[in-house]
């Protein structure tokens, strides 16, 4: 339980708010490159600001404020000729990184980009997509750093054949085994959770001790302030930001990164277009159609009855908490370790900015930022005594075989 005042402080993102000020000290995903094929400028609604994205005279991407109608919807994609740029407003820099335009909504010098895999991989090995969730960004992020929820919310009552797993979460087999991840999550639902603070945020380890002296190890990460990096399959990870459009809506921006073959982007795009409307990237399953809930499916196939796409489960869970989760009624418990640890970093960073100390923010030291690589993110099954070594070696092996420079030394 936190007071309304503290909840406002960590959730609201408008200009001049504490959390909004913090997010304005980090590069924010602003648009997918695939959205820029029509003519420019393109409308971008970000952190409560109504902006337009275009190229300046030097050919660099920039954003600035645009004229807004009072009845304009919050998710709004007008044609270029309907966008009127306002003069004398701050011009924000933007850069393109492997399919995503990142913007820095601040006058101060932006920090460098860390050497995360999604940024340094070849373009052929990264696929980017986004989706709309109608809720505050923080609850969208916090579900992604709770390793326990996957055993319930994403429970599949039987294990599908893994042939059709490409580009889908929790559908592969664990590396070097024949065990489907769906089996592990379902049968071992009480993970031991370990959280370690790192120079980029948090490394979150979920250990599911199985009954034959082995342990399933799933390593995920919180990348400060609002991203996660998690395994998708044996060859892919997802780095996903939860970017506020305003206080009550956000986009997830995902950069799927392959350590193996170049990504079949056409297939992954088609899979996701089946579930989303353009140009808003709004999910076709949503509150209005009860997220596609089917009682028969719930009885026989899935925990939620909302289909096989785990994104819909998460969307239902976080939108169901209300536009901004009421944390005055929340009772966190021990399995919320990563959320507790994350909020501590978040509050510390907000306080540091209130004291005027930018240097205390994570990833704000440009001397060190290029040395931030990885992060490690995988699923392995190991003898319980050596789970850490097995997970680490599996990561090194995958990196060594990678066609782009994935080294972490």
């Amino acid at each position, binding site marked *: *339980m936190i*007071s309304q005042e*503290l909840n406002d402080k960590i959730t609201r993102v408008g200009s001049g708010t504490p959390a909004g000020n913090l997010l304005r000290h980090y590069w924010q995903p602003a648009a997918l490159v695939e959205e820029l094929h029509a003519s420019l400028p393109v409308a971008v609604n970000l952190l409560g600001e109504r902006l337009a994205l275009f190229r300046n005279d030097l050919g660099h991407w920039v954003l600035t404020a645009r004229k807004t109608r009072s009845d304009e919807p919050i998710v709004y994609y007008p044609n270029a000729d309907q966008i009127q740029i306002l003069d004398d407003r701050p011009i924000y820099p933007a850069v393109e990184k492997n399919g995503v335009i990142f913007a820095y909504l601040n006058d101060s010098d932006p920090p460098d980009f860390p050497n995360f895999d999604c940024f340094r991989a070849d373009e052929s090995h990264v696929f980017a997509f986004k989706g709309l969730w109608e809720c505050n960004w923080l609850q969208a992020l916090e579900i992604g750093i709770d390793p326990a929820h996957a055993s319930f919310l994403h429970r599949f009552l039987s294990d599908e054949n893994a042939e059709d797993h490409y580009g889908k979460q929790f559908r592969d087999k664990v590396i070097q085994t024949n065990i489907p991840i769906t089996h592990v999550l379902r049968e071992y639902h009480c993970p031991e959770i370990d959280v370690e603070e790192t120079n980029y945020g948090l490394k979150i380890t979920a250990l599911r001790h199985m009954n034959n002296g082995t342990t399933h190890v799933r390593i995920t990460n919180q990348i400060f302030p609002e991203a996660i990096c998690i395994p998708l399959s044996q060859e892919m990870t997802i780095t996903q930001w939860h970017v506020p459009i305003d206080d009550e809506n956000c986009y997830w921006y995902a950069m799927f990164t392959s350590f193996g073959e170049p990504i079949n982007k056409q297939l992954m795009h088609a899979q996701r277009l089946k579930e989303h409307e353009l140009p808003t990237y709004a999910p076709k399953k949503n509150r209005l159609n009860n997220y596609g809930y089917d009682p028969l499916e719930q009885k026989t196939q899935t925990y939620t009855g909302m289909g096989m796409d785990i994104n819909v489960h998460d969307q239902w869970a976080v939108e169901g908490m209300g536009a901004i989760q009421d944390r*005055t009624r929340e009772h966190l418990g021990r399995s919320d370790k990563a959320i507790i*640890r994350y*909020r*501590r970093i978040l*509050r*510390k960073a907000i306080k540091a900015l209130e*004291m005027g100390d930018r240097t205390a923010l994570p990833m704000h030291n440009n001397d060190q930022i290029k040395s931030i690589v990885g992060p490690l993110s995988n699923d392995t099954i190991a003898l319980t005594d050596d789970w850490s070594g097995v997970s680490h070696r599996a990561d090194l092996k995958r990196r060594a075989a990678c066609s782009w420079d994935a080294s972490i030394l």
Partner: protein
Amino acid sequence: MGCFNLVNIIPIEAKPFEDFVDGYFPLAVTLAHLLERRRFESALMVIRVAPIMDIPNLESMAPVPLHINPRYSGQIDWLVAAVHRPQPRLSAVISGWAQWHWNDILRGKVSRLPYSLRLAEPAYVRGVGFYPGNLHTCSLGYVRPVNTSSSVAVSTPNANPSDSSVNIEQFDTAECLCWNLNQKHFLEWFDRTTVQPWGCPYTPNVNNGSTELLLIEQRCADTWDAFISDTKAFT
């Protein structure tokens, strides 16, 4: 080093730790649970940026309300406390310093936190824990002296003459940080302009012979780095 009463400096068994405490119970109960779970006699611990509440007229073991009221909520920005649990009590004895704010500004700047204080959500805690033994201290209970080398020692006016058999030669008093353990019961407002939290190096003016100090060798900085930097994070 001749000006110190070295008999009173006794290396003790100490373990750095990090943990999550559940909150919701009164802080003294919550921290007693932590000591119990880790088999510690006592600990020096630090909590940062943690939401708090002080619910009027709520029995210590009664369930907390489902909903927090702004009148009794706030945040600890920084807290360093010596915590020990005299058996068979259920709650810990806490002494230390903190900086905090209440949402209700009418509550004003009182100089001490109430005994009924609770963490409003689970919190991450860093600290150094001490195991039960026969060395009697004022603020850490009965802790365990060690004959082998330890990077942590206690300087206590309580030490009795037989404790002087403990070998302190390996403990480098010239290169250590000293935390003043002589605090009033529970948690006082910490004012950086009047209080020096760490003495460094060990100096006579931090110890007039009646003060209890915790000493941590600086050469072990790696082990203690995160904890020590948290203890210095007051404003």
